[in-house]
């Protein structure tokens, strides 16, 4: 179970096991923030940052909790770590780019409930990854997430300029587009060896 190579994990988490398009994690921002690439890209980066920090802390926490046989506190501890990491990122963004902070609005604190962040922590625990594997998994996951977000945002920006039938517009269209993207990413299957 902990025998995957780092290269395999990296490639899988970005392509064939893409968090958004294959594992359905991080749907809220995927459907909510992808109306513009200039929002999608920074949000993707912020989320990647949170994912990596949370993954490292979760790894450490898991070791501690296992030693103390307190595994049932795992979930609640992970979520506390994530909430703190998000708080940290919020402060950083607010300090260095107030415009971006305002533009992202509610979606920045919503990273706390982003399934992708919690999902990384839970999956790396379930798959028994060691430190290097967890870090690779988290980074790859974040990168894959950002790619998916930017891809969908670029497509949606174009689609907005074309003649979409009234009944299809809005979330229905976004979902259909996402489905096609997901189909495309299925073509990467088995690429991680």
């Amino acid at each position, binding site marked *: *179970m902990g025998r995957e190579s780092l290269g395999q994990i990296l490639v899988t988490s970005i392509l064939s096991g893409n968090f958004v398009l294959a594992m359905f994690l991080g749907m809220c921002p995927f459907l909510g923030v992808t109306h513009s690439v200039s929002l999608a890209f920074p949000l993707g980066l912020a989320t990647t940052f949170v994912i990596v920090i949370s993954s490292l802390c979760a790894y450490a926490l898991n070791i501690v909790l296992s030693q103390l046989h307190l595994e049932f506190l795992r979930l609640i501890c992970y979520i506390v770590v994530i909430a703190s990491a998000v708080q940290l990122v919020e402060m950083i963004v607010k300090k260095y780019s107030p415009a971006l902070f305002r533009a992202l609005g509610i979606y920045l604190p919503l990273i706390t409930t982003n399934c992708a962040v919690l999902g990384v922590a839970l999956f790396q625990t379930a798959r*028994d990854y060691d430190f290097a594997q967890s870090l690779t998994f988290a980074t790859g996951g974040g990168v894959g997430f950002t790619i998916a977000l930017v891809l969908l945002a670029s497509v949606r920006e174009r689609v907005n300029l074309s003649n979409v039938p009234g009944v299809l517009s809005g979330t229905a269209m976004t979902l259909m587009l996402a489905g096609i993207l997901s189909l495309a990413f299925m073509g990467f299957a*088995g690429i991680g060896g």
Partner: protein
Amino acid sequence: MSAEAAAQTTPTLVLVRALGIISALCGLIIVGTYESTLPAATANRRIATERAVFKVLPKATAIEEFNVTPDGRIAPAAGGEGAPTGLKFFAAYGPDGKLTGVAAEGAAKGYADTVRVMFGYDPGCQCIIGIGVVSMRETPGIGDKVYTDKDFLANFKALDVKLTADMSALANEVKVVKHGTKNQPWQIDAIAGATVTSRAVGKGINDAARALLPALVPNLEKIARKS
């Protein structure tokens, strides 16, 4: 924001008290649930494992669990030794108390997620005599043929996993080959069109056998009879 702040910032003590009460309450609920569900959950797991073992070693009537300790010995799982390496196996005994086979689990990444396979090992022929899929989330109709495809399952009636003369490694690694090209007893014929899942099964078995058998085979007499 500043008007609110001027109006009422709750004193830190009240914040701490509130968080403290909530944490205590949540802690109680979690611990209570854990304790009360533990017997049922453990029983379920035991039943599932037993079912899997009996499926790959049908002549068995009793099972005992063993761990492989980090220094290569075998210890009964009940003793609590050796669990950290994660290497464990189940010794299956017939009605006469004699060892009929050993079952162990292997896992490898398949198309969608990890594929976990239980395999049955016969010390007499030094081969694997059956497999059962413990869990997998492969593509229905394609990957899940590893459950049902008769030709694929036939690979595992006598899969050669002999050790080298010094019993330190597998003489021949278990390899998955293209459908129809199997010519050695340690090869597995993949399912046409389900290569990734077939390879996962093969890799899982290979990795597990490679880790387990060099520790198990030299110590077989220790577990030859039901304790």
